[in-house]
């Protein structure tokens, strides 16, 4: 079972998608039903994977390595560690909820829609499992196309613009990544005489400092666009606003994590010296993203674009946490990836619920929903608070760990980043107040009905997760810890850092050429 479970999880949705193809397009109920069953089974499979995963195991688990295109050294190499495990579970859960959420909101070409979602699922899970750069790249691009269709066909009024913008941004980054991959391939071949795309082997490619810098830049750009890091974020609000609810949920919940995951899986271990060198610049960009995203979110008129900008801000936190290069920051970041998927996914789902009722997302159209939709308002409050990072909700644990780790690494960054905590309260609560509180000013809001059973079912798992991670995060943190330590150990081969085993953090060695700025990071003299 260990050998095939990953393959099964990846391709089960594809099988389902193929099954959809043979069903006539007008049998809407069976299409929905089959998609639901397929995604549900995939979720169960991912839970099984979670159960099989050995918590304290070092290295990759469930590894599969079969040669695929041998002449080019391409292998079908899959494997997971704690980081990918959690993201896979997040993916399957969110996809199931997204399918459930779009039950009544999609009216035309149902078949194409659910087909896209299932293929997208394959792409997403594939990215998280791939240990072969070629495979990684293939899945990376597989994700792109269904998302393009989901936004471009089932989206809002400006959907074509948003979809093209999304694809162009992502393509631009990923093409540079492809160049980087090929360079890496030849470099490794020159070193060992073997062509391989195996990520674990490529970790040991000898690269000069300048090569590392260029490669890091190529990969980091692709990932930074996906994250999205300021100033590459402008596709995000458009894509979120125009995408249908399920698209937004998957986009925010999973696709953005691809970027941060890429940093952890590829950039950090492969180009450690370059990571250290770029660290201050990326950190500053992440800081700008935090403040900038929060401020811009504050003045948005559309709920979805507000949430989109809040994502920019939150993803900035995650980036900063990773670049703190210590166990608290890394674990906090990975946990926050999960949290952001849950909270922002939940926010988009809830926005989708009121959109289905009112067909508008403008904040000014709402107000006083607490009166007519008490359950909705309560759940919305919980989700809002989790997004703000109130203690005992999931957001707090992640944010706190990130800031804690960051404070150890660089106090100034930590202090600036913490101000994002205040700002997030400002924009979220202001939005909440305008949507939920107050008198009902718009007569159309008078007759809104509260959540249906289906919507309750959609929200229920997320609410549970919000409190579970907030109150008892141990099971999740345990899973991440070995993986996060592994990332740092891989980085140790850089000339400029040393792994401080006792405190589980990276220490930057001074007087190496690589270090440009590291004022506050723990440094030791050679």
């Amino acid at each position: 079972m260990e050998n095939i479970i990953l393959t099964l999880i990846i391709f089960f949705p594809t099988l389902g998608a193929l099954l959809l193809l043979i069903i006539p397009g007008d049998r809407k109920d069976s299409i929905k039903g089959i998609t639901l069953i397929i995604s549900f089974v995939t979720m169960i499979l991912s839970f099984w994977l979670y159960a099989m995963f050995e918590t304290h195991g070092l290295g990759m688990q469930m590894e599969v390595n079969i040669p695929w295109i041998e002449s080019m050294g391409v292998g079908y190499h899959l494997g997971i560690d704690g980081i990918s495990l959690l993201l896979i579970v997040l993916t399957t859960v969110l996809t199931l909820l997204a399918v459930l959420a779009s039950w009544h909101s999609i009216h035309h070409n149902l078949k194409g829609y659910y087909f896209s979602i299932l293929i997208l699922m394959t792409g997403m899970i594939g990215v998280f499992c791939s240990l072969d750069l070629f495979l990684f790249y293939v899945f990376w691009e597989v994700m792109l196309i269904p998302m393009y269709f989901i936004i471009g066909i089932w989206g809002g009024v400006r959907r074509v613009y948003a979809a093209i913008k999304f694809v162009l941004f992502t393509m631009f980054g990923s093409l540079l990544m492809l160049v980087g991959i090929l360079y890496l391939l030849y470099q490794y071949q020159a070193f060992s005489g073997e062509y391989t795309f195996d990520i674990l082997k490529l970790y040991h490619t000898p690269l000069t400092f300048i090569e590392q810098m260029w490669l890091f830049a190529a990969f980091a750009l692709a990932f930074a666009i996906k994250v999205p890091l300021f100033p590459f974020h402008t596709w995000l609000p458009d894509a979120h606003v125009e995408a249908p609810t399920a698209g937004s949920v998957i986009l925010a919940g999973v696709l953005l994590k691809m970027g941060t995951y890429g940093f952890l899986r590829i950039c950090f271990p492969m180009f450690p010296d370059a990571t250290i060198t770029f660290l201050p610049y990326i950190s500053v960009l992440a800081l700008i993203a935090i403040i900038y995203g929060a401020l811009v979110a504050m003045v948005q008129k559309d709920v979805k674009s507000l949430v989109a900008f809040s994502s920019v801000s939150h993803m900035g936190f995650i980036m900063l946490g990773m670049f703190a290069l210590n166990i608290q920051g890394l674990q906090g970041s990975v946990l926050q990836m999960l949290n952001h998927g849950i909270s922002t996914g939940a926010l988009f789902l809830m926005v989708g619920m009121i959109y289905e009722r009112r067909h508008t997302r403008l904040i000014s159209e709402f107000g006083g929903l607490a009166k007519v939709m008490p359950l909705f308002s309560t759940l919305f409050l919980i989700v809002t608070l989790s997004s703000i990072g109130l203690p005992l909700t999931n957001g707090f644990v992640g944010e706190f760990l990130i800031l804690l780790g960051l404070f150890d690494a660089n106090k100034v960054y930590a202090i600036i980043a913490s101000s994002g905590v205040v700002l997030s309260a400002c924009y979220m609560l202001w939005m909440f107040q305008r949507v939920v509180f107050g008198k009902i000013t718009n007569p159309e809001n008078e007759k809104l009905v509260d959540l249906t059973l289906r919507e309750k079912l959609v929200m229920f798992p997320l609410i549970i997760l919000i409190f579970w991670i907030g109150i008892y995060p141990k099971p999740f943190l345990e899973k991440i810890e070995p993986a996060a330590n592994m990332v740092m150990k891989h980085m140790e081969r850089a000339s400029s850092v040393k792994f401080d085993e006792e405190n589980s953090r990276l220490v930057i060695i001074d007087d190496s050429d690589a270090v440009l700025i590291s004022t506050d990071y723990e440094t030791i003299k050679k």
Partner: protein
Amino acid sequence: MTEYIYLIPILPLIGFLINGLALNRLPKSVVSAVACGSIGLSFVLSVILFFELKALEPSSRVIEQVLFPWISVGSFHVNFAFLLDPLSAIMILVVTGVGFLIHVYSVGYMSHDPGYSRYFAYLNLFTFSMLTLVLADNFLLMFVGWEGVGLCSYLLIGFWFEKKSASDAGKKAFIVNRIGDFGFLIGMFIVFWSVGSLNFNQVSSIAPTVFAFGGTLITAACLLLFVGAIGKSAQIPLYVWLPDAMEGPTPVSALIHAATMVTAGVYMIARTNVLFMLAPDALMVVAVIGAATALFAATIGLVQNDIKRVLAYSTVSQLGYMFLACGVASFSAGIFHLMTHAFFKALLFLGAGSVIHAMSNEQDMRKMGGLKKHLPITFMTFLIATLAISGIPGLSGFFSKDEILWKSFSSQSGHPIFWVIGFITAGLTAFYMFRLVYMTFYGQERMDEKTKSQLHESPKSMTIPLMVLALLAVVGGWVGMPHILGATNYFEDWLSPVFSHGEAVNTHALLSSTADSSMEWLLMFASVALVLVAIYLAYNFYLKKTSLSTAMKEKLSGVHKTLLNKYYVDEFYGAVIVRPIIYFSLFLWKIVDVLIIDGLINGSATVYNDISEFLRQGQSGRVRSYATIFTLGVVVLLAFFMTD
């Protein structure tokens, strides 16, 4: 019994879950029974635990209970654990005791509100958070309670969410508190990365060894923690949310914005006294801010016309007193005042609530007057509380306030100026409190006929808590009599184990520089005399010759206007902070995001588009020009092959 500590916060949580999950489906009697019962049980348990603690040796009065490990990452470990020691024992008694009374009071006060069960659910959630805050054995869990009470405050201030002003006030409270939390968070980081733990006991014992006495790092940590306290306890410059918070139901004001939550800052400083003792400069700042706030808020309180707002500013001012006490390293005096203040200020608010209830939700004192005969019980209890807060000898407020004044004068870290400020504030307090009493209960009946006809004393569920609190406001201070009266200060003795660590660190902070009992007598008499004068003045101004007050108002119209508008602080914040941020954000969105970044991207797309548009001209759609170009191509190719 000590293994049941966790039940104290959990019981209200259960109450919250029952009332919250039932979603308005339970009958009112069940709701109130669950709410009051859960906190009542907590109170009983607190009393039992208090006596169990008392039975222990003073040095071993520390009980920790670890529920489960919460966050554990690398070297960072935090447990979900509760700590019962003399300090938290006092706090849980105050919180559950006063909280219980206010719950009972609310049964009557909120009986006609449609959001009845929501109200009690929030109130129970608040009690849970507050108990977590005071029982936490580490900074992080305290932060949980800290934010939790902030959330409940937000929810309860905005309880009548259809009122824009209410939800605005709730939001303001939450955000201002968040600014404070920002400081708390960073202070916590400094503590953790220096000490390696967030557990209070470990911090207390390790901190003196890792921090240099008076060093920059510890001072920074303390100041940042103090920022958190400023936000929560409504001190300058973050006090602005508290007066607005009066939009909430009155019992909420009594519980959260007078008796318990706002005193969390004081509690936190007392809890971390070791750190503050290590940073005398930070203590100085605490004292200065406390004193300044005490005076500043008292002056605003002089002219307010809304009965609850007067009390709100009075709360801010009294909290200033508590911080002054902490600032002069007299933590037990601060906690003592916290306790007595909880009694009399809760009483004042509940009394005000009773008045408002009787007046059909009228809060403007200019429309009251002569209520003495209509609301006899309310009047009596209110008067007791007023006397207590004014510092009339024998009542609780006198003892605590006097201790603070004396400590601020005599302590090594104090200064006569602090005493002077406290002294003036005491006078002002007596003046505005009696102004309140005279305007409300004495003189002409200025309300309209309809309201007048409906005046009635409140039901028993409201008056009984008033009477109990009145009793406490009288006797509550007797546990902490000053030494010069020849009594034992039980309160100080009880708390001394908690503060012993801090005193060991900074031995001379508490030493009296002028330990002269005649001086103490003198100062005590001076303050009592000032209070009496202030009461007489208030009597003259607002009862006997009301023309005097109007004349005064006209004479000092500038000052009066400034005070009435609260020194224009809100307007100042609006103009200097809020509006620039909004405009800056709009600038970022409209200019940076849409115009510059998107402009660059769309611009490059436009450039490609233009180039294509130009090249498209070649594609005329005319067959003959295509054919010509085709032929030309053939010619060129042929020429190429021929020359080859």
